[in-house]
């Protein structure tokens, strides 16, 4: 008998999804209660995850197709927290656009379920199932504001390109299966022989598919359009939550089945990393829409995360996870600010709309100042430490080129962050924005800004949690 306690979070969340769907269909005007219940669901799931699996060192289930270890638990918790905060701050935005419906929380819950399956997967098929579940939910979420042309366009674009990448991924999986004779990661890892020429193709296809999902250069083309077109709260969801899951899968693929083939994939990852860092920094300079700019900046940040993965060491993986955690907090804070730029039921998302913000809204501007300097990686803010750990891991492997290119692109990236700060602080002021924001929005902004600002006082805690993750 399998120990089903270990997959209790997944079971609970899927039952809740079904229940909420039924509730939403049969009860009229139930969007508020669905919202609250789904928040509750996420909380309970997170608690179950902490209780049931956090102390587990490594357990496998269902013929070793699902793995529960410290990495999966940690990533699930980050995903759940991210999902919770996205859901909690999106209600007022959705109400403004009159799309405060029951589908939104259910879709978010289903994509979270898909991600949790992905995170725990130890088998190609399980992994693919989770991936498709989260993707399907995300397609719909992207078009969620269906009366707006841009939102529909974003959803369609995302669907076409993502389906293409899924196809590549699936093709890669089938090649790998053909050469190893199994879909299980552990067995593949024992069976693979690096002399097989075609196997490299399989790995490349899988990596390309995954790179699509995390929008690493040169597979990033969809990101700016989709991020710009989707409703802002969905963009927030896109920029943080799927990346966590995709990163986990990236780590699993590289370090479980393909660890012996490190010579084949290391160069690819280094290339992806450098291209993303440089391109993300350069392309963001000319942007005028904040959401597009965030899209490019998130491409850059993914580059740094990949730099940690390229090292093929436990320190590297840990630093990537630290990076993505801090990145989640920073992005959450940034989007909370963005959601506060509201005047008479209209949201503003151009950089010019921030002009002179510091005169009318000193506290909001101060938060933005902290967040942007942190994103730029200036000490003593959290963003600096994220980069610091990554480059520490990179330099341990004497990959000087990667480190120097990465650090130089932070200087380029600093330019566009500074540009926003300049617009906020040095330019002429415009009209005031509304200040009657929901309590949760204020809460998430305050807490995340304080975390960013004061991270340097207790940097050890995060490292301690992450240091339990030893894949290799």
């Amino acid at each position, binding site marked *: 008998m399998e120990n089903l306690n270990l997959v209790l979070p997944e079971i609970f969340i899927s039952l809740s999804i079904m229940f909420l769907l039924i509730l939403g269909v049969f009860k009229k005007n139930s969007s508020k209660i669905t919202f609250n219940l789904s928040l509750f669901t996420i909380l309970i799931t997170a608690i179950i995850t902490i209780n049931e699996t956090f102390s587990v060192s490594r357990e496998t289930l269902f013929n070793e197709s699902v793995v529960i270890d410290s990495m999966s638990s940690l990533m699930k918790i980050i995903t759940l927290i991210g999902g919770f905060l996205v859901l909690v701050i999106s209600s007022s935005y959705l109400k403004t656009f009159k799309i405060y419906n029951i589908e939104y929380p259910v879709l978010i819950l289903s994509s979270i379920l898909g991600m949790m399956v992905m995170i725990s997967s130890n088998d190609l098929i399980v992994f693919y199932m989770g991936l498709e579940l989260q993707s399907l939910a995300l397609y719909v979420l992207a078009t969620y504001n269906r009366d707006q042309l841009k939102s529909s366009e974003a959803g369609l674009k995302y669907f076409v390109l993502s389906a293409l990448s899924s196809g590549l991924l699936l093709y890669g999986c089938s090649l790998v299966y053909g050469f190893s004779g199994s879909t299980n990661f552990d067995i593949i890892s024992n069976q693979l022989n690096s002399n097989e020429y075609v196997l490299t193709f399989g790995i490349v296809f899988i990596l390309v598919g995954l790179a699509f999902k995390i929008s690493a250069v040169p597979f990033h083309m969809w990101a700016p359009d989709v991020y710009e077109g989707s409703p802002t709260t969905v963009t927030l969801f896109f920029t943080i939550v799927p990346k966590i899951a995709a990163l986990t899968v990236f780590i699993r693929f590289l370090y479980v089945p393909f660890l012996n083939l490190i010579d084949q994939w290391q160069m690819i990852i280094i290339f992806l990393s450098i291209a993303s860092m440089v391109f993300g920094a350069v392309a963001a300079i000319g942007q005028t829409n904040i959401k597009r700019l965030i899209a490019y900046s998130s491409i850059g940040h993914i580059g740094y995360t990949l730099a940690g993965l390229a090292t093929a060491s436990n320190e590297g993986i840990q630093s990537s996870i630290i990076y993505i955690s801090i990145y989640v907090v920073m992005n959450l804070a940034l989007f909370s600010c963005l959601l506060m730029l509201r005047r008479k039921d209209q949201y503003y998302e151009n950089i010019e709309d921030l002009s002179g913000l510091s005169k009318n809204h*000193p506290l909001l501007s101060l938060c933005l100042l902290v967040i942007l*300097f942190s994103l730029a990686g*200036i*000490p*003593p803010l959290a963003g*600096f430490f994220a980069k*610091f750990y990554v*480059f*520490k891991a990179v*330099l*341990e492997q*004497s990959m*000087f080129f990667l*480190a*120097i290119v990465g*650090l*130089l692109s*932070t*200087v380029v990236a*600093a*330019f566009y962050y*500074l540009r926003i*700060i*300049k617009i906020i*602080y*040095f330019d002429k002021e415009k009209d005031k924005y509304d200040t009657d924001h929901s309590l949760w929005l204020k809460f998430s902004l305050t807490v995340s800004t304080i975390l960013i600002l004061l991270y*340097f006082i207790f*940097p*050890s805690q995060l*490292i*301690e949690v992450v240091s339990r993750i030893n894949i290799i």
Partner: protein
Amino acid sequence: MNFPILSSLILLPIVGALFLFFTKDKGGNNLTAKYVALFTTVVNFLVSIYLWISFDQSTSIFQFVEDRVWIEGFINYKVGVDGISILFIILTTFITPICIISVNNSVKNRLRDFLIAILIMESFMIGVFCALDLVVFYLFFEAGLIPMFLIIGIWGGERRVYSAFKFFLYTLLGSVLMLVAIISIYWITGTTDVVQLYEIGIDVKYQNLLWLAFFSSFAVKTPMWPVHTWLPDAHVEAPTAGSVLLAAILLKMAGYGFIRFSLGLFPIASEVFTPLIYTLSVIAIIFTSLIALMQEDMKKLIAYSSVAHMGFVTLGIFTLQQQGIEGSIIQMISHGLVSAALFLTVGVVYDRMHSRLISTYGGLVSVIPKYSILFMLFALASLGLPGTSGFIGEFLILMGAFKDNFLVAVIASIGVILGAAYMLWLYKRVIFGKLINKDLKTILDLNRSEYFILSCLAAPILFFGFYPDPLINTIEVSVTDLINMHNTNIASK
């Protein structure tokens, strides 16, 4: 010594800033905020004086050391002072209250935020000078960019945006390579603790590259020719108090870094690259002095003179002679006082006439005599007249240089003459001559607070000019030990 006196020095301005943060912003005329900031910085100055009094001059061991685990098994929060760093800390705590008194007229809006930025800046600068761990040093070194960027950008002149960006990106670009070097040092030796690194030493084969990486950061910050171009822009556009902080303290971070890290950690590489430093320093001295001669803008002239003076400093450090290094330190302290004073004197007439151009002025001596006398004192100190602190520094540096390299010393001496030329010519054009500009007839002489701060600066300039012993006694043992350590390292390799 159990009381964490250095940490309290670092934290006190931040506490003051936090306090200000929770008061109401009343725009330009916010006396409460000013008194709070002034009180904080004066207390900090007194604490630092206490630090100097209780400092033991007979040893080069780091004192008042605090060592706390910060990131498990990786970085310790370690601070401490020796004879070299303590003077810079006192300079910082001395200059900051003067800046705060001086913001009477130059800052019209958001005075509270300006004071917060200055206070935070002070705590970062003190942190730089007492950090004994490379990562902690880097944190403070880089963090200072944020408040300075805002000071230039929000309260600066017309082209403030350009200058603020140039300042920020230039220095950041220089510093990232230092970060690579710091992490590499950690992987080579297993520690970033400076004291331990002094004992262990770094393998010769890495030293050159690491030295260059540190150099790239310090050269931009010093600034050395040819990466000095951010400095004139930043100085011209920054408000007076910002210029003072920049010239008096920020530039000294790099000079201090050269002594503490470049010399201390990479002795072999320092020998190797001495010709490079000599060349760049000599070019900086001659070339920027010539540029300074041709300036129309007073602030720009003083900015270029800063580059030239910092050229002397780098020259002195890399003579690797007792006199040279002592001279450099004294020159840095003296330049901190003198350039601060010069920027403040320019600020005084700028506040009244709103022009920094030399051609606006002329014949000031007949209308504002007090101002003219003090300006003369500072101009003479800047050109290194005996009896002022500027002389001691330059003289010691040239003495060290003559011992090491005759040619370089001779060329550098020409720089002294050029320095006299541009300073005296500036003084002549501004103060003497006929009073042509009619507006100048009604100009007011120094008011009480201006008189007070300029006298505060004049006193140590004259005092240390006649009696430099307190400075030299403080640094002597540390410098001697630094050179001994250097020589043993060279001899053993």
